[in-house]
């Protein structure tokens, strides 16, 4: 019983008494062309970045990125937004990332996190998981995607007091 109490106590403490992560950690990722880039260097230093954790086998993730791909050009007329689609595909499905990205004509940057170090460092449990940063600082996180939710994401960005 004591162990259960201690465990629950620790969970509550960490979940509610800490402010949470506010910066993107320095973890190496690969571009789809095999170059190494640090996650903290990949974000937009002058504006917003939408960091979306996805995988080739995750249907809601692809739905979200397809939806963002359709509207990102019009969003960029109003706000300075960079999209980083971080693929968590491991060596089994990683092969499918580059042909899928080209086949779908996604116009944003795709990075690869094959052993899920970045996913682990960001405390991401399930995907899709989307993080919004403003000048390297994390301002919003969300789990899951339902149709139309990209509009809500844009609202978060538009309403952010810079």
């Amino acid at each position: 019983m004591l162990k259960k109490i201690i465990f629950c106590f620790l969970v509550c403490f960490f979940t509610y008494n800490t402010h949470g992560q506010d910066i993107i950690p320095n973890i190496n990722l690969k571009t789809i062309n095999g170059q190494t880039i640090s996650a903290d260097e990949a974000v937009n230093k002058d504006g917003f970045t939408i960091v979306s954790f996805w995988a080739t086998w995750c249907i809601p993730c692809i739905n979200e990125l397809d939806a963002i791909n359709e509207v990102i050009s019009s969003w960029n007329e109003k706000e300075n937004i960079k999209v980083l689609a971080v693929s968590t595909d491991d060596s089994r499905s990683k092969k499918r990332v580059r042909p899928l990205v080209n086949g779908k004509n996604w116009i944003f940057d795709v990075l690869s996190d094959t052993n899920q170090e970045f996913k682990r460092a960001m405390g991401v449990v399930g995907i899709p998981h989307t993080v919004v940063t403003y000048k390297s600082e994390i301002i919003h996180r969300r789990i899951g995607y339902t149709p139309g939710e990209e509009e809500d994401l844009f609202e978060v960005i538009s309403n952010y007091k810079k």
Partner: protein
Amino acid sequence: MLKSVTITLTALFFLSLSYSQSNRIYGSFESNAVYYQENEEEDYENKLGSNNYLNIKYLFNSNWNVEIQVESYLPRRLQSYSDSFEDTHLSTLSINYSKKNFKLSVGSIYDQFGSGLVLRTWEDRQLGINNSIWGFRTSFDTDNVSLKLLGGWQKKGIGISSGKIAGFDSSITLINSDTKYQNLILGLSYVGRFEMPHYISYDFNDLTNLFSTRLDYFSDDFYFEYEQVIKSKDGITQFGSISNEFVKKGSAHSLNLGVTKPGFGLDMTFRRLENMPLFSDRFEQGEIYNESNVNYLPALTKQHDYQLANINVYESQPNVSFPDPELMKSGEIGYQFDLYYDLKEGSSLGGQYGSKLSLNISSWYNLKGQYTYYPSDYDTDFLGFGEKYFSEQSIEIRKKWSNKFDNIFLFINKYYNRRFVEEKSGEINSQILVIDNTLKLNNKKSIRLEIQHLSTKDDKKNWYGYGLEYNFNYNFSAYYNTIVNYENLEDNKPNYYSLGASYNKNASRFSVSYGKQRGGLLCYGGICRYIPEFKGLSFSINTSF
């Protein structure tokens, strides 16, 4: 152990308060619980099981950080997870230092060399895998050279393995041209597993060596990746024992190449594995909980999301197995193709809103060669295709009909040789059709209807399934789905169902569901685990902070 964990965590918490302005603590919490009404495990006394994971990372400064993960299985683990998971224990502890190009970690090491053919340590909670190495890792990176060295004992359940692992990995950029984009990288790795088998003296070495060579080339519209692995002689584990009479080398060859252009992508993979399993404890081979696995040898087939597409999934066959004189295998050989094509908006096939097309073809076989059952031995041909294990052809079309309505059409033709893959009996030919429709009612509300059918004259005959999901807003959804084996009169048309709801708020998700889950192989990321059938009420919470 618990006492020391508590002290460490509490100390970290109080330290965090002094740094609360700079927010140096982050992590995640996940809890999955089931209240069982019916289950297959006979000795399962507790109606309630739960698996809980608390992961904390604490940054002291830009150079030092600590990661801790505490797991709790209270009042008991969920069924089908390793028996050794009980109570509360520390599963990950690592102290990490980094300065410029140099990194050093002591404690639980998660890493991967190349594509993982020689080494991959990782965590997958759905599969109950955490094979991190309890030891050290150091790495050094420059623009063109990357070097890594690691060693230690592997985590096995809540303890550690008897075998020791040591590894070295390097990658050297030979060509890196920015003017016309070109990149050529050479990779060399070594992994050694040292295990002294208990009590018996064997003819083969206690140390098993794996050497890997990789060559990766990328340009604007073409890429090529090749990896070759040589594994030194090791005793083959058969029926839980190792014989001096059956000692073989292993090898792996993996070739992946592709062509991409805007709106088009083509990828081809060929892989041949011969006697490639590597466990830190040799006798773990064939155990169901995927513990002590050193290398990562996933099935190279398309991973599907839909329930009926996940019946008769292929599991890779890297092992030597001679269960009877008619069934002898020494590995696998096969290929996979993927094609992606964007049918443009306004084109005759794409329609007003455009469509996305994807095709996948894969075929996997036993290695062709000379096999003798007694005494056990084999001699394989390098490019010989033996008995077919599995093949699949699938086509997926995503079509947007209007701003409010879109659907996904998926058709799969599948062959599954259960006799060779699972070492049971039967071959199954099946066709699966899925139509997944989404209708947006307004900006926030949407409804999704999914219809599935599996046709087969083999095994347990035809299935149908459907699912209905209603998204009330961005945060709250409810669903019902069912699959029915309607032509299986022998088992009285078994049906499985789930009724559930989920609530998401920022980085937290709560979900609850009630239903009956089909037992079978749960495959995630190409690795499979058998899960028993159960009926019950499930809850899950996960949050990142």
